[in-house]
C-alpha cells in the first residue's frame, strides 16, 4: 500500500480554488518533493494531508487512513514540521520535545528517553535546557524536526523546512532528511527551492496555481521537458538585435536578468558556433557564454511560461498588497 495516495484533491476558499484536482502517489520509503512558487498550493495540500484542513473535493489516504474519516489515526502515524516552526519561546528544547511526546501518547519514561536521544541526534543537546526564544533559526528548525520524530512516524511531512536558513543550516537539514529516509521514513517535502527538490527527492511534482503541471524523477523531468540552453551576456551592441539573432538559432527563453540572454537549443554544444556566428553577423560582441544544463526551473518555464522565482516574488507582492 502506498504511504500517501491522493485522488482529485481540491480545496476552495470561497470562489478561489487553491488546490484543483491534485492526484499523486507516494510509495513507502520515498522522498517526495512538492515543488512550486509561493501561493502555488503546496502548504494548502500539506495541511489537507495532515488533517489541519478539510478538502472540499477528492480524497486522500495517509499511512493507509483516510484523512477525513480516520483523521485521528492519520495524526498518530505522521510527523509534521510546518512552515512556521511552531515553537513556544518560553519552553526549553527538552521541554518541548517531551511535550510533543505526551501529545503523541508516549509513556513518560519513554518520552524522556526519546527526547534525549533526538536532541543529541540533531546536535541540540548542549542547548536543550535553554529557552527556545534564544535559539537561532537553524536551531529552531532542527528542534522542530526532532519534535516531529519523537513518536517515530512512518510518514514525515516537511513544509519548506529550509526556507530562510543559511546554506550551512540548509545542508544540515538535508543530511538529516537523507538519514531519516535511509532508516525507512517516507518523507513528503514541500519546497520552493529547485536545488532542494533536485538533491533530495526521489520523485518530484511541480505545482502551479493549485494544479500539478509535471511529475516524475528529477532527471526524467529535466530530460523530458528541459533542453540545454545557452546563456550569454553581450559586451557591445543592441540587446534587441542580439535577441533577434539568437532567435534565428533557437527558442528565446523569458529573460531572468536584464543583460542576460537565454536561448534554448536542440543540439547542445554543437549549436554554440551557430549562435556565435549569428551574433557576429549582427555586429554583437559577446562578453560571456556558457551552455547550461536543464534545471527544474526550465521544466517549470516549459509548463507555465514563468520562472519559479518570478512567480514567488509576484505572489509575495500580491500578499503584501492584500
Amino acid at each position, binding site marked *: 500500500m502506498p504511504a500517501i495516495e491522493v485522488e482529485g484533491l481540491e480545496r476552495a476558499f470561497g470562489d478561489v480554488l487553491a488546490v484543483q484536482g491534485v492526484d499523486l502517489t507516494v510509495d513507502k520509503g520515498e522522498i517526495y518533493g512538492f515543488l512550486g512558487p509561493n501561493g502555488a498550493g503546496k502548504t494548502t495540500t500539506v495541511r489537507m494531508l*495532515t*488533517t*489541519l*484542513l*478539510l478538502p472540499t473535493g477528492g480524497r486522500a489516504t495517509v499511512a493507509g487512513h483516510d484523512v477525513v474519516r480516520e483523521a*485521528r*489515526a492519520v*495524526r*498518530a502515524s*505522521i510527523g*509534521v514540521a*510546518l512552515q*512556521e*516552526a*511552531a*515553537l*513556544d519561546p*518560553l*519552553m526549553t528544547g527538552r521541554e518541548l520535545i*517531551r*511535550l*510533543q511526546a*505526551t*501529545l*503523541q*501518547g*508516549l*509513556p*513518560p519514561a*519513554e518520552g524522556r*528517553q*526519546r527526547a534525549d*536521544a*533526538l536532541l543529541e*541526534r540533531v546536535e541540540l543537546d548542549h542547548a536543550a535546557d535553554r*529557552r527556545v526564544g534564544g535559539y537561532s533559526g537553524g536551531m529552531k528548525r532542527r528542534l522542530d524536526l526532532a*519534535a516531529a*520524530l519523537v513518536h*517515530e512516524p512512518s510518514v514525515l511531512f516537511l513544509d519548506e523546512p529550509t526556507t530562510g536558513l543559511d546554506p550551512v543550516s540548509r545542508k544540515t537539514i538535508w543530511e*538529516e532528511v537523507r*538519514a*531519516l529516509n*535511509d*532508516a525507512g521514513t517516507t518523507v513528503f517535502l514541500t519546497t520552493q527551492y529547485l536545488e532542494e527538490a533536485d538533491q533530495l527527492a526521489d520523485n518530484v511534482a511541480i505545482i502551479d496555481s493549485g494544479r500539478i503541471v509535471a511529475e516524475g524523477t528529477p532527471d526524467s523531468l529535466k530530460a523530458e521537458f528541459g533542453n540545454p540552453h545557452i546563456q550569454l551576456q553581450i559586451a557591445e551592441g543592441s540587446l534587441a538585435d542580439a535577441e533577434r539573432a539568437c532567435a534565428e538559432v533557437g527558442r528565446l527563453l523569458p529573460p531572468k536578468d536584464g543583460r542576460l540572454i537565454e536561448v534554448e537549443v536542440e543540439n547542445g554544444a554543437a549549436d554554440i558556433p551557430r549562435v556565435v556566428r549569428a551574433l557576429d553577423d549582427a555586429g554583437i560582441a559577446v562578453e560571456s557564454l556558457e551552455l547550461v544544463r536543464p534545471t527544474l526551473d526550465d521544466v517549470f518555464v516549459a509548463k507555465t511560461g514563468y520562472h519559479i522565482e518570478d512567480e514567488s516574488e509576484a505572489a509575495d507582492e500580491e500578499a503584501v498588497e492584500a
Partner: protein
Amino acid sequence: MEAAAVPTVAVPAWRANLATIGAMMTRARNELVRVPGAAIPGVLAPTIFFLGLNGVFGALTQLSGFSTGSYEAFIVPVSMLQGAGFTGAAAGVNLARDYESGWVDRLLVSPAPRWVILAGTVLAASARAMIPAVFVFTIALLLGAGFPGVDGMVICFAMVAAMAAVAACWGSFLALRFKSQSAAPLMQSGMMALVLLTPAYAPIALLQGWLRTVAEVNPVTHVIEAARQGFVASVTWADTWPGLLALAGLLLVLGGLALREMRRTAQ
C-alpha cells in the same frame, strides 16, 4: 537516522489524555513563572476594582435593603469573580496568540482529542484564577470583611474556579472563531458585562429598572449570590444549588461552542 531502540508500551487513552491536560497546564504555568510580572495585571485589575468600588460606593450600605453594613463583604465575591472572568478571558487571548503563531497547529495535528486540548486550556485558567482570588480575599479580610466560614469560603472559591472555566470557554470560542488577538476586547468586555449585570453593586431589590430585569435573568446572578452568601449571611443549600446549576449550564453552552469551533478549525 537510527531510531532510539526504545520499546513502546501502549498507554490507556484516559492516562494519555490526563497527561496531555497536565502538560498543557504546565506550559500555561510557564508564563507566570518565566515572564517577570506576568501575574500582575490579573491580580491588579480585580484588586483595584475592589478597593475602588469600596472607596467610592461604600456608603450604599446605608440604604435599606442591604443585609450587611460592610460593603467590603458585599463586594468581595464580585471582585473575585471579576478576577476569574479576566483570567479566563486572558486564556482566550493566549489561545488566539498561539493560533496566530502556529502553536495550535502543533496541538491539532497530534492525536490528542479536541476536548482534551480545550480542557487543558480551561483547567489552566481555573487554576490561575486562584491567584487573584486569594489576593483579593486576603485584602478584604484585612479591611474588615468578616470571614465567611469554611463552607462559605469553599463555595466562593469553587464558584471562582468554575467562573474562570466559563470565561476560558468564552475566550476560546472567540479565539477559534476569529483566529486573532484582536478579539481580546470582546473576550474581556463580554465577561465584564456578564459579571456586572447582576446584583454586583447592590441587592437585586435596589437595582434600577432595566438592570434589575437583566439581573433577574442573568444566570451569573445566582453565582454571585452563592459566592456571597457566607460573607453576608449563612450558607444554605437553597442559595448554593442555583449557582451550581447556572455554572453547569454556562459551561455546557460555552464549552460546547468552544469545542465546536475547535473541531471546525479544519473547515
